[in-house]
């Protein structure tokens, strides 16, 4: 009898334990699906057809969109059994959010243009992003592999610095696609009209001084330098980059390689106070507040416009792409210079530009097909053509050193289209200063830190315009707000939260499965209860 009772208790305990385990397992079901790690197939199965998706970004530049389409057509000619579906975006942020959403639903693209900061977040979906080391080294299908049907670059022909920017946790999780940096497009005519001479390297002190000088007005309220009622002497497109580069140049804290956040320091505080002072005077504004720097520069209403080299075709009196009425354009000489520096002897500028990552799929053959397409985007045909659409630099030495590319650079100023002088000046500036570029540490949460760095400048600028006082108390509050908003005091970043937040309702199949499991457990419990009742009755007799 005792043994029998003991056995019943054990059954109950086991049942409860099983129920608990089931509950724990089920709560973990609806998240990013954990995939098997990818391993390179020995051969591409060419008896099959593959349909892969490629998400890319263009700069509102139809030439870039057409170039992607041309590249896909050329690739599909080489690989008739691989079909590439292109989805174009005009904003990296939207790609990022869409990828995050699609990780949760297991519907990521195959190949995606992205930034390493973003990949660090994608990696939170286990085995979601394919590490490329094995693929790159594969004798048959790797870089310049024997079975690759196009003349792509070998590993040695990739620019090492650009390649290293895509290494996360010791693994190559992306390949660079294009590289750019920020430059300052200067209205040299106005600088000289104000009585200044451009130095060889712009300094922050010089830019602030000239910007303040440009605010002088005549008795009718028109600015002396341009004779117009409007002038914002200094406009910065990416305030993220502004803060990051300033802190780097000041040798101030930003983050450690491991992800410790150091940005909330006194150097940042001094940057914010400087920004506040120049917003208050009217000498400085940002893209978010005042729109594209190029439009103001071209209208003669801005003197220092900081933007990417990838925005160079919009800059200057003869710009091939314009976004304002032609009658608003003014004539001036454009100088393309490094972004302002703290120490002109040791210039530092950010390395940026799109990279490519490969998403894992259940079918390794599909991944291999995607990898071939990704690799195709590194061929000279694509690299040189795409670099020519803006002030981009090819990421392979194979392209940079090719006769075709050298000829392209040598023809600076021959026309205002492909050989537009400002664009080629911006391109050459990066090529000449690759050694002066840097990237920020990449970790899960680095995208949030980047967001916070720019947002602080934006918040200060907006607050000044809204007549708020920027003092230490304000900045203390701002720091706390940023920490909270971007979860910079936690391992869990804003993106992680979004990843879970955007999971959406459970799919119908999952609901059915859960309902089925619940029904089974209910049945077990009812059966166990009935058995117990029977035993009690028997014992009572």
């Amino acid at each position, binding site marked *: 009898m005792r043994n029998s009772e003991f056995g019943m208790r054990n059954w109950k305990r086991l049942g409860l334990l099983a129920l608990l385990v089931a509950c724990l397992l089920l709560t973990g079901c609806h998240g990013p699906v954990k995939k098997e790690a990818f391993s390179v197939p020995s051969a591409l199965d060419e008896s099959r057809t593959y349909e892969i998706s490629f998400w890319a970004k263009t700069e509102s530049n139809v030439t870039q969109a057409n170039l992607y389409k041309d590249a896909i057509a050329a690739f599909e000619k080489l690989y008739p059994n691989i079909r590439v579906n292109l989805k174009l975006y005009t904003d990296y*942020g*939207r790609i*990022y*959010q869409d990828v995050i959403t699609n990780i949760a639903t297991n519907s990521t693209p195959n190949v995606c243009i992205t930034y390493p900061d973003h990949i660090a977040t994608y990696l939170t979906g286990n085995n979601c992003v394919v590490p490329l080391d094995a693929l790159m080294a594969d004798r048959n299908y790797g870089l310049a592999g024997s079975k690759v049907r196009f003349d792509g670059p070998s590993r040695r022909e990739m620019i090492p610095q650009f390649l290293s920017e895509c290494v996360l946790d010791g693994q190559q999780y992306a390949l660079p696609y294009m590289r750019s940096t920020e430059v300052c497009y200067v209205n040299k005519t106005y600088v000289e009209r104000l009585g200044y001479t451009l130095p060889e390297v712009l300094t922050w002190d010089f830019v602030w001084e000239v910007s303040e000088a440009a605010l002088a007005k005549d008795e009718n309220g028109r600015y002396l330098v341009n004779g117009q009622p409007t002038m914002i002497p200094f406009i910065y497109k990416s305030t993220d980059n502004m803060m990051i580069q300033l802190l780097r140049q000041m040798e101030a804290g930003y983050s450690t390689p491991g992800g410790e956040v150091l940005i909330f320091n006194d150097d940042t505080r001094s940057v914010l106070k400087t920004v506040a002072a120049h917003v208050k005077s009217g000498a400085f504004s940002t893209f978010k*507040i*005042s*729109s*594209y720097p190029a*439009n103001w520069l071209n209208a003669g209403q801005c003197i220092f416009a900081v933007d990417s080299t990838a925005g160079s075709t919009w800059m200057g009196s003869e710009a091939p792409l314009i976004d304002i009425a032609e009658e608003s354009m003014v004539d001036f000489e454009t100088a393309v210079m490094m972004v302002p520096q703290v120490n002109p002897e040791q210039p530092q500028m950010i390395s940026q530009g799109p990279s490519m990552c490969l998403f894992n799929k259940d079918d390794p053959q599909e991944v291999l097909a995607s990898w071939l397409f990704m690799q195709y985007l590194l061929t000279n045909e694509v690299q040189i053509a795409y670099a020519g659409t803006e002030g981009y630099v090819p990421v392979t030495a194979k392209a940079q050193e090719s006769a075709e590319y050298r000829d392209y650079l040598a023809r600076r100023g021959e026309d205002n289209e492909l050989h537009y002088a400002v664009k080629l000046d911006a391109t050459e500036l990066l090529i000449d200063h690759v050694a002066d570029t840097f990237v920020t540490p990449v970790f899960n949460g680095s*995208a*949030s830190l980047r*967001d916070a760095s*720019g*947002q602080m400048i934006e918040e200060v600028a*907006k607050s000044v*315009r*809204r*007549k708020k006082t920027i003092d230490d108390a304000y900045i203390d509050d701002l720091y706390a707000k940023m920490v909270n*908003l*971007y979860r910079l005091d936690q391992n869990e970043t*804003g*993106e992680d939260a*979004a990843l879970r*937040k*955007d999971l959406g309702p459970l799919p119908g199949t999952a609901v059915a499965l859960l309902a089925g499991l619940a029904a089974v457990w209910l049945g077990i419990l009812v059966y166990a209860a009935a058995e117990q009742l029977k035993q009690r009755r028997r014992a009572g007799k």
Partner: protein
Amino acid sequence: MKKFVAMLLALLLMGCFAVAEEAPAAKVMTYAEYVAAELETEVVVDCYVQATQSWYYNSKVGSGVITVYAADKDGAYFLYEMICSEEDAARLVPGTKIRVTGYKGEWSGEVEIMDATFEFDTYVAEPVDVTAFLGTDELIGYQNQLAVFKGLTVEKIEYKNGEPGDDIYVTVSLNGASYDFCVERYLTGPETEVYATVGALNVGDVVDVTGFVYWYNGVNTHITAVTPAAK
């Protein structure tokens, strides 16, 4: 010492209230007032959604955002990347009235409301006690309002067509006068609690009746709730 600490705390508390009172809710502006407002000043407007751009999670602001084209009868507004949850975004259908608080800004010539938050502009009426007006000419002044009549005595309960399923006619009395009320099946049908409650009333029950002061050749309140009269 205890008294001193208590007084100090009381003063602090009063100070808190005083500070809170210094920041009254911003006044809702007319379109003309909005147009006249300076750039970079806070604005509050009531408007109706006309169309929306797609909602998305903006990691820069750490929230979902949606851009809305809105209007009132006098003019229109562009609500740029207004903070909005995905659930609320689904409710921003054309015609929806919202109250928006943000800053008036300009971007490339586009005057817009930025850094905005919003709330759905809803109003749910509280019932007005009109017991004292029952049987007077003043009651019609409350026509269509949600009202409560207290201490009514049930005189008769009658189903239209003789059985449950259709309207219920309710005769109640107060101070010797009788009044006809109604459970309107298209407002509160047989599946509702009030329908069952009224169906179970007995002659002589004293109840408080809530409903809309409908008129059908005289007061004929459409009942929404019945509770035993408070003693």
